[in-house]
């Protein structure tokens, strides 16, 4: 019965806090800049362990059970003897949480997760010499701000994609050219605007402000000081009045565009393709201000129990043939430059701008905002991701 007593104490304390009210915004923990723990990458590979545990986005680790045509796991298992166990994560936050359990060997982390994993010491640096296919990765994906620290790679790039503006061609006219269609002019489609449901979407507003409000001096949408951040948040608050629903599950976005509940908003290339396949009249493109985007990186856990199999997997998933398969299945630009020759749709790499480095120049890849400004400013402190999360809750109201 001591437990009940404890609960009673907790309730009393709870009530006491309520009664007190109190003042001051308390957030004691302050984080410093990026000083990842000094972890060593392996110098050579040993014998494979017979098993590998992966965390991945849906569609990255396919063994044919979802779609008999999508299977690049079986051959890997045959060739290396490493049995693949994979866990599909629905969000970057979930990936970070799963990696913390230490039960997984590798993860396909997006930029809004990777820096967190590096800083917390959950991801180890990768010895790229042990991944032969790393040579053929597009140079635009190597040594990125989201996957390396001081020139040390913390993973192998897998692919990339841009956040596009999709609109219903029958209901939206004239055709939009700018993100203003979902920000300043969003009221024209009140109740039918959609946006990505994640704190990282604040960067989309910052990117728009970077082009339209030069006085704010935004250089990097992931490095916002308080004033810039407040401007982005207030823009999103205004947008909220016109939003019909936010999307994070992409089936939900497809159904909303099909029925006409959403007529304009952010999307990914693959969603645009699927929505068009289902008969909706939609178009998706990168507006004139450029866009945000994501780039996924396979990272190895610092506590990996099967590091050799994990390295084998890293090399396998970016090998030209497999990288082409997974990129086509998922709908993203492959990371391996040789993959483009091996896609089943010969126009695939053109559609997804795989080798078009000028296209990617306009894309600001997801990154984790930290207090130390990522754009190099030292005279101000930037708003860290935890505050982005809180602001996102407040924007949605």
């Amino acid at each position: 019965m001591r437990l009940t007593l404890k609960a009673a104490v907790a309730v009393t304390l709870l009530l006491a806090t309520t009664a007190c009210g109190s003042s001051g915004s308390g957030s004691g923990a302050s984080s410093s800049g990026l000083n990842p723990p000094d972890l060593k990458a392996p110098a050579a590979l040993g014998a494979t362990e017979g098993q590998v545990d992966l965390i991945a986005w849906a569609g990255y680790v396919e063994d044919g059970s979802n779609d008999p045509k999508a299977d690049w796991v079986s051959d890997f298992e045959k060739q290396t003897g490493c049995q693949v166990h994979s866990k599909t994560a629905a969000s970057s936050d979930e990936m970070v949480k799963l990696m913390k359990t230490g039960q997984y060997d590798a993860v396909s982390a997006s930029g809004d997760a990777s820096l967190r994993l590096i800083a917390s010491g959950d991801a180890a640096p990768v010895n790229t010499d042990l991944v032969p296919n790393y040579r053929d990765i597009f140079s635009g994906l190597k040594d990125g701000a989201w996957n390396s620290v001081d020139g040390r790679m913390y993973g192998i790039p897998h692919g990339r994609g841009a956040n596009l503006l999709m609109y219903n061609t029958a209901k939206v006219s004239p055709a939009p050219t700018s993100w203003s269609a979902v920000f300043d002019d969003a009221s024209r489609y009140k109740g039918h605007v959609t946006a990505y449901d994640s704190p990282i979407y604040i960067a989309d507003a910052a990117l728009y402000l970077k082009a339209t409000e030069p006085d704010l001096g935004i250089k990097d949408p992931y490095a916002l000081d308080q004033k810039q951040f407040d401007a982005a948040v207030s823009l999103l608050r205004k947008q909220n009045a016109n939003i019909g629903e936010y999307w994070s599950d992409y089936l939900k976005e497809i159904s909303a565009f099909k029925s006409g509940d959403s007529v304009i908003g952010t999307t990914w290339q693959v969603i645009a393709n699927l929505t068009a396949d289902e008969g909706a009249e939609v178009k998706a493109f990168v507006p004139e201000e450029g866009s945000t985007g994501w780039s996924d990186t396979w990272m190895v856990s610092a506590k990996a129990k099967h590091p050799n199999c994990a390295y084998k997997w890293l090399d396998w998933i970016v090998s030209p043939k497999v990288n082409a398969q997974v990129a086509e299945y998922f709908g993203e630009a492959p990371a391996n430059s040789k993959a483009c020759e091996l896609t089943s749709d010969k126009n695939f790499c053109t559609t997804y701008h795989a080798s078009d480095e000028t296209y990617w120049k306009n894309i600001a890849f997801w990154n984790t905002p930290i207090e130390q400004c990522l754009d190099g400013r030292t005279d101000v402190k930037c708003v860290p991701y935890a505050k982005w999360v809180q602001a996102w809750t407040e924007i949605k109201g």
Partner: protein
Amino acid sequence: MAPQTRTVSTRTAGALHRRPRLRLALLLAAPLLWLAVLYLGSLTVLFVSAFWTTNSFTSEVVKVWSTDNFRELFTTPVYRQVILRSVGVALAVTVLCAVIAFPVAFWTARVARPRWRPLLVVAILTPLWASYLVKVYAWRLILSEGGLADWMLRPFGLSGPGYGLTAAVLTLTYLWLPYMILPVHTALEQLPANLFDASADLGARAGRTFRSVVLPMVLPSVAAGSVFTFSLSLGDYITVQIVGGKTQLIGNLVYSNIELNLPMAAALGTVPVVVIVLYLLAVRRTGALSSL
């Protein structure tokens, strides 16, 4: 061997027979352990972790005692707003369920022919056999642009509510309605017919009988049903994600915090617990808990 075993078992049986309290203690030990350790224990862990904090960058839980989470809970406008909205939704769903359930239950319990009654009860319960998600997605289709709701309202020059708070309340009402109909049906069925006769003999008309005889006797059952509709609505976060448009309820806040800020999620999670405890205390005064 055999005689010895017998003596052991007879002795134990004898001891148990002589000590009824020991018997009771042994009988209740397992369920009490379950209640204390698993149920109250997890609630305690929830309360305690609400007082921890997180590292703002790595979002790891830092086990340092602080009341910041609760302070934030009560000083941040958005949290207050969402809490009020959630309680409002739960109350609206409960009232709607009660208003719809009463005539339905009256019909199934007293108006319909006796041999049809069990079948009608089964019909009311059938939706509970279907998956929760299937039902909510069905409502997503009904309420979509140009969907069934729009189509039915168009002749009247109206359109459906679209996705949003109204849609969430409608869908939750649909989901939890059987939990309200059932206790009300039972209460109405058990009303002795001679009370109606007595009321009529004393000159009361239908309205008066309803107010002075039926309502007071059925009210505890409505309160009992409302415990289900209220608590189920207060804890729901999936329905509102599917048909609620951009609406956030407490459950959504817990869900969005659970990965990055577990202590804050725990602090938010205590809100429905406290609200429901208060609600149960209020309902207990009506005597409804004894008719659950």
